[in-house]
């Protein structure tokens, strides 16, 4: 019986369909066009820390953090430290929050977004590569291309803007620790929010 069980286990410890991102390992490569038609790849930013933020303008959790000015502030603070911030919309055409380039640019102007670029990923390729599940869902990649943080935006899982000030904001924490040459104290947290509105596979 023991050997049967071991056999069963060894059969199921298989390589997943696609490699999922792992903190401490190289982050998945990507090549995605932004709302101004420019292509961004991870390799473009070698030597710089990169933040990835999955977004859907109509998701109440995204609205919570933009409505409170939390994401704009984090983006501006990151820019001041030379960190690259990329916002990604993996919503499929016809799904809630899907943007074309003009829609994305109008939204950025309206909310005062301070990200370096807004990447349009309607086929969900980049989203699936990162296994992005929620909006928001945040990732921090160091200058060597290694994933250092993935997870939720902060420590209080709620839709209430009142909670923003009480919560620990994980990306600024990770950026400060990376800048100080320290290990990231919270390398993962469970993401929370709306599901990413992927198209049919």
């Amino acid at each position: 019986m023991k050997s049967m069980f071991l056999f069963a286990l060894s059969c199921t410890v298989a390589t997943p369909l696609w490699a999922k991102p792992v903190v401490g390992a190289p982050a998945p490569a990507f090549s995605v066009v932004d709302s101004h038609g420019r292509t961004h790849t991870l390799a473009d930013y070698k030597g710089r820390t990169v933040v990835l933020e999955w977004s859907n303008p109509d998701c109440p959790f995204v609205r919570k953090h933009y409505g409170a000015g939390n994401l704009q502030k984090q983006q501006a603070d990151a820019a001041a430290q030379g960190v690259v911030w990329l916002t990604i919309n993996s919503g499929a055409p016809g799904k809630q929050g899907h943007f074309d380039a003009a829609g994305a640019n109008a939204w950025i102007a309206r909310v005062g977004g301070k990200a370096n670029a807004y990447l349009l990923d309607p086929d969900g390729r980049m989203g699936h590569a990162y296994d992005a599940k929620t909006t928001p869902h945040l990732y921090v990649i160091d200058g060597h291309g290694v994933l250092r943080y993935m997870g939720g935006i902060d420590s209080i899982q709620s839709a209430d803007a009142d909670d923003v000030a009480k919560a620990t904001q994980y990306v600024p924490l990770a950026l400060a620790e990376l800048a100080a040459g320290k290990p990231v104290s919270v390398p993962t947290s469970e993401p929370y929010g709306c599901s990413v509105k992927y198209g049919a596979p």
Partner: protein
Amino acid sequence: MRFPYTFPPLFHRAVFALAYASPACAADETAFEPVRAELVAEHVALVPGGTSSLGVHLRHAPHWHSYWINPGDSGLPTTLAWSLPAGYTAGEVEWPVPKRFDVGGLHNIGYEGDVLLPVALKVPADAVAGSNAPLAVTVKWLACREECIPGKATLSLELPVAREMPRPDARVAAAFTTARLAQPQASAWSGSAHDGGARIAVRLAGAGLPSMSARLDAFVVQRKVVGNAPPSIRRDGDALLIEAARSEYFTRAPVDLDLVVTTTDGPAPRGWHVRVPYAAGTAPAN
């Protein structure tokens, strides 16, 4: 005595409050509200020193769902924050067996349709018969179809304190009966969870294991332990083997794994609760 009790029949004193969701991001008063919430009590009065069953009744619009204590890949569990007279205490939500919702390749766990979330209310021994107890709860939920609308309602209910055992409230008897049938039953199974790194295997044995069926499912109460995709479930001799990928957000092994095994074989969904020790590394010896 803060709420002097005069004389009407007990059931007239039970005031039910029906509240509607207030979507956090919609200013429009006519905005669609996917969940209605109501605070109900199983009996028409409370008894000093007794325990009474309350319930938050959530009614979901078709195709909308709210979430279990572990919501899965996205979503938020429904939360209750009570405001009770001094000496009264409310227990945790007694979560009914949940259902799986797979949306756009992501895996969620929760409820649709009508669901009652029961809570046990402890009444202090010095509650004064003849007085009224004002009970209030702020309920927060996230309702999703594919898109999501957060909701919040403060519900209140005033119940009289009676000298003798009160009768059940006929208006909510069916809802409480259904909720009771949907409670995961304590199981006498023994078992263990083994963390093989990429996957976690739970082996259950003992009397009364459900027969193998495609309608079996299993949900882990703790978050950040197993992935949320449906686990593989199979019989291995007398044992039931449940295997799931380890969560990519796994950070710490729990001491025990709390599992709810469910089946939709039969007229209504049923489930069992089992707590098994969690061990990293080696497979179990049989």
